[in-house]
């Protein structure tokens, strides 16, 4: 799509063109964009490459206005991309990433990467970072975290959970709805479906970003509050990576939902990512 400020090009690539994605590039006036890291947006759960309520589309276009290219991609079996039969999810994602690197190399040269994703997109970003030296940035929206000792994480979360009147009202309404709708529902609880990285993998991924002099932005919402995160700064404390605050920005928004289902939160996270990219992601 030709434009004075940005261009978008649908790509079908990889073996037999099985993968689909959209490459967004800044317009010609944005300087030497080939040297800047390219953002790669990874699917959030079952959602296709546009992200929750088009979050990835809007981020891609806003970042292009700042001079960053990006690829929002459907991994195999998601959105418009074909499944890879006979592979586990991890094997499939790893194979996808090789093909993603190939197509980006052919369009942009050997640029570094910033991996970004919500939910399972964050999980995949963490694992891919371990084996790819070109990853110099992570945008992790509701990544995994782990309760830390001595803080009473579960007790505190449980207290908040069971003392919120709004929760009871919503619970009664949901129960009523469940009783009055047809049976056979498939409830997609992301917590049940995620393939979380281990604490060791998360620590190793962050360490490798630090060694590459890269940057990490992590954001936790109400979703993480349900089970494993209830204090601002918890990720840094749990992971215990030296110099964490020098290269990691950690945000906690318990008021926001996992998929940023309110526009006001989507606008806010877009601004946070833009500010972070402007401050920390350079050539």
């Amino acid at each position, binding site marked *: 799509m030709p*434009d004075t400020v940005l261009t978008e090009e649908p790509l079908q690539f990889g073996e037999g063109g099985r993968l689909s994605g959209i490459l967004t590039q800044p317009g010609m006036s944005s300087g030497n964009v080939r040297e800047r890291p390219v953002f790669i947006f990874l699917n959030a759960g079952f959602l*296709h490459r546009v992200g929750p*309520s088009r979050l990835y589309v809007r981020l891609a276009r806003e970042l292009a206005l700042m001079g960053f290219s990006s690829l929002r991609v459907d991994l195999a079996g998601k959105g418009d991309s074909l499944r890879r039969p006979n592979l586990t999810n991890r094997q499939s994602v790893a194979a996808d990433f090789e093909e993603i690197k190939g197509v980006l190399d052919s369009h942009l040269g050997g640029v570094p990467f910033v991996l970004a994703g919500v939910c399972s997109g964050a999980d995949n970003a963490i694992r891919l970072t371990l084996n790819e030296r070109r990853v110099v940035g992570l945008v992790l929206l509701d990544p995994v975290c782990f309760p830390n000792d001595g803080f009473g994480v579960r007790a505190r979360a449980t207290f908040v959970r069971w003392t919120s009147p709004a929760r009871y009202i919503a619970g009664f309404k949901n129960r009523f709805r469940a009783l009055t709708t047809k049976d056979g529902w*498939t409830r997609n609880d992301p917590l049940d479906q995620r393939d979380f990285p281990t604490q060791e993998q998360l620590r190793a991924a962050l360490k490798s970003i630090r060694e590459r002099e890269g940057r990490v932005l992590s954001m936790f919402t*109400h979703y993480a509050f349900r089970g494993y995160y209830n204090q601002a700064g918890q990720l840094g404390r749990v992971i215990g990576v030296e110099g964490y605050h020098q290269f990691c920005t950690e945000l906690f928004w*318990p008021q*926001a939902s996992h998929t940023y*289902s309110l526009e006001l939160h989507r606008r806010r996270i877009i601004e946070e990512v833009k500010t972070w990219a402007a401050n920390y992601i350079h050539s």
Partner: protein
Amino acid sequence: MHEAFFFGPSDQQLFANYHPAVRGDGRVLTVICPPLFSEYMRAHSVLRELAVSLSEGGQHVLRLDYRGTGDSFCDLSEVGVSDWVEDIQLAVREGRELSGSSVVRLLGVRAGALLACKSAGALIDVQRLVLWDPVPDGASYLQYLRDAQATLLEQHFYLSRDERREAKQEYAGHRISDRMVGELGALDASAYSSVPKSKLHVIRTSSENEFPVQGVPQELVQTAYNWESDLENKIMSQQLSEQLIACLTLS
């Protein structure tokens, strides 16, 4: 195999996926008019699979993202119903040029059904419109979006007073323009009744929402999902897909 592309005015480009007919004479082009907002995210996969099945069965298929939705350009807050109606007309024209098909069928899903019927008035070559769970009219759809917003607000326990006030301006988690609100509210069931009944076929998954036009062929398919609750669940139903394919391939 499909082809993804942008088309339309250079400052407001539309995104579409084109699935060429794998076999047969490719006489028929089906344009899929998706639902809106979270319903589109939930139905994306089933609509893609439907397009693949139809193309394997010998039809050309075009899947469209309206302006301000999916991968198409524009901000949702800048567009109105009239833009989306025009988008469908553009998509039909583009699909016909790509495919060379002489017969056009439209599949409209939820609010997409209302838009498809509204756009069909300017499309003399539309042979059939299959409507999957059509919304009754624009006003009731707006109310549905407001109700969805109220549900969302119930689920956001920790919003500040200012955030809650701001979020009350949204419709199912989206900011839409006053123009959109006005145009949706004015979109009544005449959009359906203006289409000859012989061209319409309705597939419903709930016996609750009556289609507002009498005498239109209707099928009721029992499925395990519901558009109006569990807003983040993926929609999938083999039985429904088979029924849609049957309606869209009927000669």
